[in-house]
């Protein structure tokens, strides 16, 4: 299942991961998120687990990898909607020392605007004009 990528103002990417996270699916999820990171060069990456149906240690690798990507760019990663069984896997990894796990993300995106495809297209033409 595709990851739903939402773009916000303020350099924020909000990624809703959907379905099972295992070794088989991790590649696709990783490339969806990394594509957005490369395109947007965000300051903050929020990973939403509300639509995840299963996760094994591949999820730890996935988050660690995105953490490194973001840290290299001076950005941050936060995790949200992390229910009990997923939290249990993360707890083994000490990932909570690298990324925050938050219940309510409104502190981060409450004042930002979600950009739709039109906005992003406009942004691109504006950029092109600037040259």
């Amino acid at each position, binding site marked *: 299942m595709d990851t739903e990528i939402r773009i916000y103002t303020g350099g924020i990417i909000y990624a809703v991961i959907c379905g099972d996270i*295992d070794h088989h699916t*991790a590649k696709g999820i990783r490339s969806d998120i990394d594509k957005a990171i490369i395109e947007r060069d965000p300051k903050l990456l929020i990973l939403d687990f509300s639509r995840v149906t299963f996760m*094994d*240690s*591949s999820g730890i690798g996935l988050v*660690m*990898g995105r953490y490194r990507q973001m840290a290299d760019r001076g950005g941050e990663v936060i995790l949200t909607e992390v229910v009990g069984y997923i939290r*249990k896997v993360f707890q083994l990894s000490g990932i909570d020392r690298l990324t925050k796990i938050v219940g309510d993300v409104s502190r981060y995106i409450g004042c930002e605007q979600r950009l739709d495809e039109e906005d992003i297209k406009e942004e691109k033409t504006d950029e092109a004009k600037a040259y």
Partner: protein
Amino acid sequence: MKQRLINRMKLSFPSCSENERFSRTAVSGFISHLDPLIDEISDIKTAVSEGVTNAIVHAYPDRIGEVFMEVKIFEDRTVRIKIRDKGCGIENIEKAMEPMFTTSHDEERAGLGFAVMQSFMDKVSVRSAPGKGTTLTLTKKLKEKERYE
């Protein structure tokens, strides 16, 4: 005391990553007549996924081999899952089981598969012979069913 076996199943499949999902849902379906708690099902599915993924990723790194799985259910609600491969085997089992140890660096592996299995199951044991293959045994005793009367 040796417990009486009340149910068992065997399964084998090629080491394609598509089968990771199949193998863990097959186990959860098989034990469902015991009415396990949601947490127990989730722990077992996660541990099976780790074990099967290891066979797929590490045992047969550059070919498709066969993965064998056997599940036994005993009278005292103990579930025993064996995951076996005829792959490359493990040189140093103790080392392999250390948290954060991984031999595959190209992919984003956390080296925490064994740590997950050990924390989610009652017992994890590994037998392996380099060049011959590995047998992983995962054991968990399910909680007694509540009696609603």
